[in-house]
């Protein structure tokens, strides 16, 4: 018997940590989670759109944290505040532009193939939650623009039947949703989306002669 080897337990105790670890090792090995090389077909600018979207989201969150700390008077009345206000606004514009370009790319390459339907579906949910987050952001500006949007949007919300629990005239509710619940939701969904992409790898191109490359 080799004394250097540790004794092997024949019967592993039932443990949720063991089951979780085995599930992670099976579905998301480290080679997939942090790959250092990609298949040759990933060499296209189309695959960069998703990364730029994530980069824009980082800037959205960073500038948003600064705005939340400093408050409306600062972001309206000081030069640095207006700079961060603009940084937040324009990084959101880039986030949406590149998210839609990423969506176009994945649509035309049928990114939902070969077990990636859930990855596509989570992307759709991210798109929806992002729109809601941006909407509550427009309502949180604390200026005439946000008042105009709120007063006009309330009728649509009431007509849709959500006005009782989503009151666009309630600044505190909109601001709380915008800086807390919705950004956390978007971030969790984006991390989930990326983990699923890493678990299955980038979808292979559609064979130009028909069928799907295996």
């Amino acid at each position, binding site marked *: 018997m080799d004394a250097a080897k540790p004794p092997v337990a024949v019967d592993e105790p039932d443990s949720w940590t063991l089951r979780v670890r085995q599930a992670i090792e099976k579905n998301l090995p480290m080679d997939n989670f942090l790959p250092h*090389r*990609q*298949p*040759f077909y*990933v*060499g*296209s*600018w*189309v695959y*960069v*759109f998703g990364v730029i979207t994530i980069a824009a989201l980082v800037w959205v969150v960073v500038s948003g944290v600064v705005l939340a700390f400093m408050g409306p008077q600062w972001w309206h009345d000081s030069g640095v505040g207006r700079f961060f206000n603009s940084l937040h606004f324009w990084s959101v514009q880039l986030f949406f*532009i590149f998210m*839609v*370009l990423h969506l*176009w*790319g994945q649509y035309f390459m049928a990114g939902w193939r070969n077990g990636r339907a859930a990855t596509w579906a989570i992307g759709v949910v991210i798109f929806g939650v992002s729109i809601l987050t941006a909407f509550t952001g427009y309502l949180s500006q604390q200026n005439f623009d946000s008042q105009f949007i709120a007063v006009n949007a309330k009728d649509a919300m009431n007509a849709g039947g959500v006005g009782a629990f989503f009151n666009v005239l309630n600044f505190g509710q909109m601001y709380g949703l915008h800086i807390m619940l919705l950004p956390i939701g978007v971030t969790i969904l984006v991390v989930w989306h990326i983990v699923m992409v890493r678990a299955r790898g980038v979808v292979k191109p559609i064979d130009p002669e028909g069928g799907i490359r295996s």
Partner: protein
Amino acid sequence: MDSPTTYFHWGFIVISLPNVLVIAGMIVLFAIALVAPFPRGGEGHDGRR
């Protein structure tokens, strides 16, 4: 800056000039991404980069 922008009325579609420019720019950027050469590193024996 304070004057309203130009709006296009194409049938049931009503869209502002800035939004048309953004969408046109996105289409152009998408087309460029499809055809622009991507800088390639050395490929491994298995074709992976």
